[in-house]
């Protein structure tokens, strides 16, 4: 959705003070916002990533990757979709894996799909690509619900092959961390297979190319990890809340949203429970009311 002069004119005709002019900067650069949610979000993402990178200096802070990891020496964690795939592939129920997936479920019952916006490193890479492209990509009209069909299909393939298919081959998280650790191992002449590096680099770069032409197609439709966390949005404690009286109908919140969440139809409702909302807080920042209209609240 292009941010062009027309939208601003309609905003003016409704006698709403004009939003600070959009500059070059990705998804309609948000400037002069008093809320620093974007910066906080990046801080969280980079600190998680740095804790993961510490393992290459032989520090056991967070070991593994975002699919499965070991936190502070003894807490084992597994991504929910990876757990489902592994469960279907092995057809065997173990307490080890259940104990590992339970903390993750607990966290995302509280925070909903916040994983995608606040922790996933691909979100940052995609934003960088978005900045380079200046948001001129094609937005295919695909309903995100197709993603659930894809997720179920992947689960069935995993069951048939008895290998966690998406997680082992296609997952952006697995491949990103494989690439990082493989690169470090390769540089220090430790055992690593260059083919694995090539494969992972191929997957990551093809995702970036996909992002260049179809903005957020991966996040909105294809990524099954995000879709699984999206289910938590229906019951999560964190959600977007509205104060409808403040709304001037400028539609800026929908324009800055890169997950294509339709916000305005939900203004009557007490809270937004869209499967695609990643709680990035761009609508909160982008809103002219500076946080009075849209709030992220528990």
């Amino acid at each position, binding site marked *: 959705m292009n941010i062009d002069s027309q939208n601003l004119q309609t905003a003016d005709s409704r006698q709403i003070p004009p939003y600070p002019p959009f500059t070059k900067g990705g998804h309609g650069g948000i400037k002069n916002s008093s809320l620093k949610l974007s910066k906080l979000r990046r801080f969280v993402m980079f600190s998680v990533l740095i804790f993961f990178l510490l393992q290459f200096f032989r520090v056991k802070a967070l070991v593994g990757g975002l*699919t499965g990891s070991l936190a502070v020496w003894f807490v084992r964690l597994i991504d929910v979709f990876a*757990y489902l795939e592994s469960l279907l592939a*092995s057809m065997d129920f173990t307490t080890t894996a259940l104990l590992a997936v339970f903390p993750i479920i607990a966290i995302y019952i509280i925070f909903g799909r916040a994983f995608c916006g606040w922790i996933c490193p691909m979100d940052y890479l995609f934003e960088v690509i978005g900045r380079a492209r200046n948001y001129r990509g094609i937005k295919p009209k695909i309903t995100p619900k197709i993603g659930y069909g894809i997720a179920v299909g992947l689960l069935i393939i995993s069951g048939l092959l008895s290998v966690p298919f998406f997680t082992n081959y296609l997952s952006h998280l697995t491949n990103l961390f494989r690439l990082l650790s493989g690169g470090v191992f390769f540089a220090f002449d430790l055992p690593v297979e260059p*083919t694995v590096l*090539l494969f992972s680099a191929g997957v990551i770069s093809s995702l970036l190319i996909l992002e260049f032409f179809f903005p957020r197609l991966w996040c909105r439709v294809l990524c099954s990890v995000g879709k699984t966390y999206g289910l938590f949005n229906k019951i999560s404690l964190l959600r977007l809340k509205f104060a409808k009286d403040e709304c001037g109908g400028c539609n800026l919140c929908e324009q800055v949203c890169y997950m294509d969440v339709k916000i305005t139809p939900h203004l009557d409702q007490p809270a937004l429970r869209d499967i695609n909302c990643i709680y990035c807080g761009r609508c909160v920042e982008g809103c002219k009311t500076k946080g009075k209209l849209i709030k992220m609240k528990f």
Partner: protein
Amino acid sequence: MKFTRRDFLKASILTGATVMVGNGFPILENLADAAKEEFMGPLPDIDVGGLIRPPGALPEKDFRAKCISCGVCVNVCHVMRYDAIAVAGFNPPSPPFNKGGMGGLFSKRGLSGILSFGTPYIKDMRDFPCALCMECPRHCPTGALQKVEKEKVKMGIALIDFNLCFGWNGDVCLSCSKACPMGAKVFDFYHGEWGNQPYINENCVGCGLCVKYCPLGGSAVKIVTKKQYEKIKVPYLNEFKGLLTMSNEERYNVVYGQNLPQIMARGRLVEREYR
């Protein structure tokens, strides 16, 4: 002078060319070195028979189904400073004697090679054997690696190449038995005129420490999977018994005629062990 994009491209190509000529493209050279085989491994006729999994692994099919390729075991091994575990590609080279190698993008192992993509295995036992610290099964989040005692680990079994081993060819070596974490449980010695002949019995856990500490260039010990061992058990045991019951003259011919020239040739290349 204006520095346009074209200039930048020219400059970068020039710099790249200089670096390539100067250093000889270090990364590619590294790869080529890795692909080069320094020695024929021990027991070249016997295949490893799959991947040597980290300690405590479930049976192959269950392991593949459970493993989500998260990299906890790989990185825990790195944190523990052993670096034994690597991630398998489509066509993983067989441990212990394929040091590096590209592996190839297309699987020679067929479907099992493709399905085992991304799973952990012990890649290079000659330089990075498993030290049986048992941290990876303790930390595996999926239960693909399960907690076991050190003695009950079944990663594989070590086979000694009787044609290359110093102990079987008139010498006293003992390196493998000194390196072995299981010691007397695993090693049987048949002392005789032709050396202190070591034999590794079926209690072996397959950690590969003997592979690393064998002083012979390229090692005289090979780890194969338990499954493969069941297949090659009979000829291997026959060879072993044949050597023990051989007459002195025959044995002289075997040792001085066949084996010692091979061992001496490897001895000249053995500096890599002391680098």
